[in-house]
Structure formats: structure tokens, C-alpha cells
């Protein structure tokens, strides 16, 4: 693993304990991302991921052909890769002038890991959004302290939003209640941002 990851992973439980939920999930995602991107970048490439590809068009009575060979970038030219040479010695130079040789490399592990990370993050976000839209209002309804999110216009005019910090101020020490408090704060921030951008069109039009 990357040395950074070896440093960061022991810190992760401490971070989880101290930080609030809404700051944990993106931070954990970022850490995960960084650490999972490190090994693919350093991973030694398997032999099938490097090649020198020479394409030779038809020449006189010889048909076109594609040659692949696993050589280093310095040796990636017609003379090293085209084997067996289809033309006699004095024609080799003319034939090789027509051939196009390219050195190509790729890392299939990197691609696979990145696509899977991306799809999992999208999936997690979709699930969280579904949770917030469908499940959360059902859980929160019996809770008297929490203001429903769609009543924000009334909340702005009344001072009731000022009342929201007080339950949290009552020494919310358990992890769950802190997570709840942080989630409520985050939701309010997103509300505020949504009002600024989408409703009042003050920014980002």
C-alpha cells in the first residue's frame, strides 16, 4: 500500500469517532479514493498491458499485416518488431518506411478499480438520496423537536430555527445524537444553498 495510506488508515477510527457524520462520509470517501488509487498507479503492469504495435500496409505483392511484440519503448521500431521480415534484405528499409510503429501501454487494474469505485460512490449517493427522500420523513415525524424540511418559509420568519440548537446544546454526547445534530446542520446548509441558487437565483445563474 501507499505509505500515505499506512499513515491514514490507523487515524480513520479516531476520525470517525470525532467527526460528525456528514463530514465523515465525504472524508472517508476521499481517503478511500486516495488509497485505492495509489496501488493501481504503482502496480506493476502485467505483460499483456504493454506492447509495441506495428502496422504495415500492403507492399508490392505482400499483404498488409499487424505485428505485436512486448518490447521496451526504445526498441519499438520496425526492425525489432517485424519478425519474420517478409522482404529480402535490400528491401527492408523501403518496407519499414511504410510501417507505423507505436508503443502502447495501459493498466487494466487501474481502469477496473476506478470504474468500480465510481459506480459504488454513485450507488451510495443514490441510496442515501432515496433514504433521505423516502425513509427519513417517516422516521422523523414522531419527533417533536425536529422541524420538517418543507416548512422552511415559516421557520425563517419565526425564531423557531433559533430553537433548534438548544436540543443539541443539551449536552448531546452520544454518537447517534451527534450524528443527528450534524445531519440536521448539513440539511439546513443544503437548504440554504438550494434557496440561494435555485429559488432566489442570487448565485450561479
Amino acid at each position: 500500500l501507499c505509505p500515505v495510506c499506512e499513515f491514514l488508515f490507523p487515524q480513520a477510527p479516531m476520525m470517525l469517532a470525532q467527526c460528525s457524520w456528514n463530514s465523515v462520509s465525504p472524508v472517508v470517501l476521499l481517503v478511500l479514493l486516495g488509497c485505492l488509487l495509489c496501488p493501481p498507479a504503482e502496480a506493476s503492469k502485467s505483460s499483456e498491458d504493454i506492447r509495441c504495435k506495428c502496422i504495415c500496409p500492403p507492399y508490392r505483392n505482400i499483404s498488409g499485416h499487424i505485428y505485436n511484440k512486448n518490447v521496451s519503448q526504445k526498441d519499438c521500431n520496425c526492425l525489432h518488431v517485424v519478425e519474420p521480415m517478409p522482404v529480402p534484405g535490400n528491401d527492408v528499409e523501403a518496407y519499414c518506411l511504410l510501417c507505423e510503429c507505436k508503443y502502447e501501454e495501459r493498466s487494466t487494474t487501474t481502469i477496473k478499480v476506478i470504474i468500480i469505485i465510481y459506480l459504488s460512490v454513485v450507488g451510495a449517493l443514490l441510496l442515501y438520496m432515496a433514504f433521505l427522500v423516502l425513509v427519513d420523513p417517516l422516521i422523523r415525524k414522531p419527533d417533536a423537536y425536529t422541524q420538517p424540511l418543507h416548512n422552511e418559509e415559516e421557520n425563517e420568519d419565526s425564531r423557531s430555527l433559533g430553537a433548534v440548537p438548544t436540543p443539541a446544546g443539551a449536552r448531546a454526547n452520544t454518537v447517534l445524537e451527534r450524528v443527528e445534530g450534524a445531519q440536521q446542520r448539513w440539511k439546513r446548509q443544503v437548504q440554504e444553498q438550494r434557496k440561494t441558487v435555485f429559488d432566489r437565483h442570487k448565485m450561479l445563474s
Partner: protein
Amino acid sequence: MDQKGYRRGSFQSSTSDEDMLEIAGASVDLSMADDDPPLDREMGGFSSYNGGGMNGTSTMMDFLEEPLPGVGTYEDFNTIDWVREKSRDRDRHREITNRSKESTWALLHSVSDAFSGWLLMLLIGLLAGSLAGLIDISAHWMTDLKEGVCLAGFWFNHEHCCWKSNTTFTDRDKCPEWKSWSQLILGYGEGAFAYILNYFMYVVWALMFSLLAVLLVKGFAPYACGSGIPEIKTILSGFIIRGYLGKWTLVIKTITLVLAVSSGLSLGKEGPLVHVACCCGNILCHLFTKYRKNEAKRREVLSAAAAAGVSVAFGAPIGGVLFSLEEVSYYFPLKTLWRSFFAALVAAFTLRSINPFGNSRLVLFYVEFHMPWHLLELVPFILLGIFGGLWGAFFIRSNIAWCRRRKTTRLGKYPVLEVFVVTAITAILAFPNEYTRMSTSELISELFNDCGILDSSKLCEYVNDFNSTKGDDLPDRAAGPGVYTAMWQLALALIMKVFITIFTFGMKVPSGLFIPSMAVGAIAGRLLGVAVEQLAFYHHDWAIFSGWCSQGADCITPGLYAMVGAAACLGGVTRMTVSLVVIMFELTGGLEYIVPLMAAAMTSKWVADAIGREGIYDAHIRLNGYPFLEAKEEFSHKTRAMDVMRPRKNDPPLTVITQDSMTVEDVETIVTKTTYSGYPVVVSRASQRLVGFVLRRDLIISIENARKKQDGIVSTSIICFTDYCPPLPPSSPSVLKLRSILDLSPFTVTDETPMEIVVDIFRKLGLRQCLVTHNGKLLGIITKKDVLKHIAQMANQDPDSILFN
């Protein structure tokens, strides 16, 4: 009233990035602060340095020397005080240097403090590079997902899927492992029904991606939409937008950028990549106290992060630094130049090691040819420059008109529907034309490409005469039927892109406009290049061609024309100069083409400037009313400070606080009745001699804190801003000493100072307000908003469009 509710809203908004302080209404809930990690001891040194140029080594045993959470921080949507931040940093640095002589530990601390900047740059480069690699690979894959799937592994895109296939020479473009949707569903790929099915799947995928993008943006991080560069310009000039560079914005912007690009919309990813890099910079700043607590130092880091963002977008580190210097940053000290370059290099190197496009290229459209060009070709290049300038001015006008309509009319109430309709139109119009069906980066890559013997694309279908072929150099040839088909298809693509980009840029998904502008320019360039090539081929005996373009010679490179066209259009829209040329020359890897690129860029900038003064980003800043004081424009009117200052002739007199004769109740009344962000402090109302300036937020926090924590402070307590408070009879309540929050060195000008100088002072020093005196007595105040309104008025624009403070 909108402003009042707005102010309250901004009091209550807090992000988990910044100090976790909630101010509900006018009261501070300090119990919230206990949730956070305890303030570290370094804050103890800070509070005595509040108030700008105050003497930091005061030895007064003042109760309020204790650090108060919140004093010295800023509200949302406010401008920072550059002078105060910079002097705070100097004081901190001085303290560390002085203490480093005491012990080894302190010496190590000072060394690590010096190195923290470089470590931060390294981390920013790594994170920005990794995120850019993720974005590139995912976007490449998802774009191809609209057309088909790879059976050898669903995570491969078309190019990688066909990497392994062992084909013969004649079949080298066929690829059995890649199945288009119709092949997968129906089993065959040819025929009308298969075409319709492919069309349908393309549109469905495009709609799904863009809907998902806009729902994620709306649901989780509304600040993640748009390009981001206008807002980052404003933030770097000193504005605070809480949450704009936060964690959720970073995650959502990265994810939705991939979705938006893959949905086939006419947008690019370069502008949003700058936003992503700045978010990385802001988030990583929290690891270092030096940058977390100081807004001015943080902006230096953000300048460097912006450079890293452009560097990974184009694979151009130097171009990135110059872009940050020219377009994005406001103050750019030399130290930042070196550090930005380091961050940009690290980011480019990280991206290279992830190798998203294979062959260690960083950009899909890297140009690999080095064909020479002739001086006479400058004429078509300048024509391309003129086209770029005209298109740039047209695009800016129409895009701003459309965005203004979105802001003010009912169109703005249906963002999700708007994205749906625009994507539907784009997808339906794009599929039939092969050149709009492919992703824009691929299109640019194909247009930049110089045709070789083995190229089998339609654009390279020239009439080949194999007898005269010597090696790989192909002479100028007559265009075959494939080229003619490609020409009219490209012309249609050009028209479509010109119009659809106007409606796409500014939607509620992350959208950049570098790639669409380059595409428009590249198409126009290639069309012109092929036209000139054919002209030279058929009329090689004309006087202008005979000298250098004889028959059988390879003289015209249409790919070069495409490149020059791309540079011209990009320059016309963004009005970039040096950074554009350097980015393009880093893309080509050589100095051969600098002269054509410069000619086209200069021409397009002049033509576009003749039509409209502002680039696209400045136009968007003005549209949104951000308080951005343009640093490049000269202020050339003959007004004076007294014409701009407040209060005007018929207004109530200036609201001031006296230094030792007002009670707590008086001050609270002033603070609640008025909405100013600061108040001057004078010796007495009669004399109006200036003592200093105190900020509203600091006042509120200090008074609330004193009422709760200090003994004997009641509404009739006197507030004293001086060192030596006047003696009071023993029965009166104890005095509240607020000397520590007073700024003793506010900037002043006299009322006869020309506004040119005042505007210059605001720009160079980054002031928020400036006091105006007459004969030594305080007369009024000029704030940054007043300056901006005055400039707008002088330019005959609407002064009420300046929205923020």
C-alpha cells in the same frame, strides 16, 4: 425584507469546514462550540493581534485578551479584510521566529511551519491529479456506454476493449468484443431497426445521465453547478462563500461532472476541474493551522490549486500557472508563482502515472506532428482569428441574455425540466451526425490529426496515388468522396454546436466551455484547411502557391488549421492571451506553431474586444452581481471621494460610536437598528475626531460574551475603547473594555481625494471600507460596494445590480 432575512440566514448558516459557530439572530450560542475539538493554544496569540496594526505586545492584563471563538472571522457573503489577515500572518510568523531561538522544539516548529506550504502543495497536486484521473477514465467509459458494452469486461471502453483483439490488416477496424446495444439486444447490428434501437438507447442513456446529475446537484450540493470559475475569481478577490469549496461540493462536482460530460451535452470539464482542484486545496488547508486560520494565506493556496486544476485538464503545467495568474487570481505574489508551479507539476505527474489515455498522454487530443508552415498561411490564420473573435462576442452576448432570462423569468423555476429538455434536444440532434455523436474530445482529436497512410477515417479519404508515395509523407492530394461527405457533416455539426452551447453553459449541472469552444474553432479551422489544401492542389500553378507548394509536395496541414481555429475561438470567448498560447504550445509539444497561434489569438482578442469589453467569466460575474473589483480596468472619471461617500447630503448623519461615553444598551440599539458591517469610533460626538473602526460581528460577539461570562456587565455599563477609561463613581456598574477588538489604523482619505486614487487604494490594498475625513474630522465612509456601484454608474450600467456586500 429580503436583506434582513438574508442576514439572519447568513448568521445561521455554518459549515462543518469553518468554525462551528452558530449565531441565531443576535445571540451567540457558545455551547455549540463545545462539540468541536478544543481551540489550540496558538489562538491565544491571535486575539491580541486582532484589529490590524495594533501593538501586539501589549502587556495589559485585560480580561478580554482571552481568545473568543468567532472574533476575527467573517460572515458568509462578506469580503475579507486583506490588511488584517496579512498583518496577522506577519505577527504569527514573527512570534514563531522569535520563539525558535528558545528551544530545539521551537526551532523544529519554525522549520516545519516553513515547510508546511510545500507539503500542502504536494498533497494538493496528488489529490487533484488522482481526481482528474478518476474523472477522465470514468467519463471516457460512460461516454462509450451510450453506444454499447464490452463483453470482455464491462469496465472497458471501446478503445480498450478492442486493444486485445487479434485482427488482420484488412479487418483492423472491426472489433468483435465490443457489442453495440442493438447487437446485444437483437443479435444483429445492421439494418433500420438496429439503427432505431441504437438511437433510442443513446437518447435514453443520455437522459438518464443528465437527470441523475441534476438530481444529485439539487439534492446534495447546489453549489456544484455551473463552471465555477467566476465564483472562484470572486472568492480569490476576497469574498467569502461558505460551502462553495466544501467536501460535499467536491464529491458531488466530481461525480456529476462525469455524468454531465458522458450525457453528450455540449460542455467540457476544464472549468469544473479548476473548481474541483480549489475544493481539494480548501479541504487540505484544514490540515495546517497556518492556512486554516488565515483567509489571505488560504487564497494563495487556492491560486496554486487553480493552477494545478488547469494543469491536469490540459496536461500543461506552465499554462496552468499562467492561467491562474491571468484569469483567476487577484493577488499573485512571487512566492505563489513558484509554489503553483510545483503543485501543477505534481498534479500533472500524478495524472501521468495513472495514465488515463494510455501512452502517457494527459489529454486526448495531443498533437504529434511537426510539419512546417509557410508565411503566406498567416492570411487564413488571421481569418480564423477574426472568426474566433466574432463567435466569442456572439456567444457571450447570447449566453448572457439566456442566463439573464433564466434568472428573472419562470424558466428558472424548472431546472430539472430544463436539463431534461436540453439533453433530449442535444441527443436527438446529435445521433444522426457521426461527428456530433462522438464525444467532443474525440472530435477535436480527430480534427487535429494529420492524415497518414494508415488512417481510415472519412476525413482522410483522399485519392491516393501510390506510385508517388515515398515513405510516410503524403503529398497534397485531391479530396475523395469521403472528404466531401465529412465536410458537409462537419458544417452541420458546427452550426449545431454554435447554437446548442449557448443554452447549455450555465445550466444546473457542472459545465465548462473550453472544450465546446475549441470544438467550434477546430471544425471551422479544419474546413478552412481542407479548402486551402484543395485550392493549392488544383491551382498549384497560381502565383501565390507556385513558390512553395509545387505538385507532389506536402505543404498544407489541415490539422494545424484546426488547432489554430481552436485557439482563436477559445481566445475570443475567454479573452485569454499568454496562457492560451502557452497551453496550446504545450499541447503540441513544440515551438513551431507559436507564431500562427499568437497571430490568431491576438486577432481574435482584438476583434472580440472591439465588440464587447468583457470575457465570459467577467460577464457572468457582472450578471450575478458579485462584488468583484476589476483589477485590469482603468478608472478614468474625475469624481472625488466626497461624491461617492456615505452619508450623502440628504441622508442622516454617519452612525458612530464614541470611545468611552456609550452604554451597552446604546450600542446594542445601534447594532440592531442598522445593518452596517462596521462602525467608526470617535472621541466624542462634538469633536468627531477619529479613533478607530470596529466591526459589527466582533461587537456582537464580544458584548454577548461579556453579558454571559463577565461579572457586573449590564445594560447601563459603559463601553470603553481606550486604554485608560475615565474614572467612574463607585456605584456605577463595571466598565466593559473592548479595546482589543478596535482597529486603531483604519485607512482614511480626505474628501478631495480623486476617485482614481481611492479606487486604486481599494484594489491594491484589498480594503473593505475607507473613512473620509475633512480638516481632520470624520465626515463619511466609502465601502467597496459604494465603489462598485459608482463604477457601474459611471459606465452607465445598473448600479443596483451589485447585490452582495
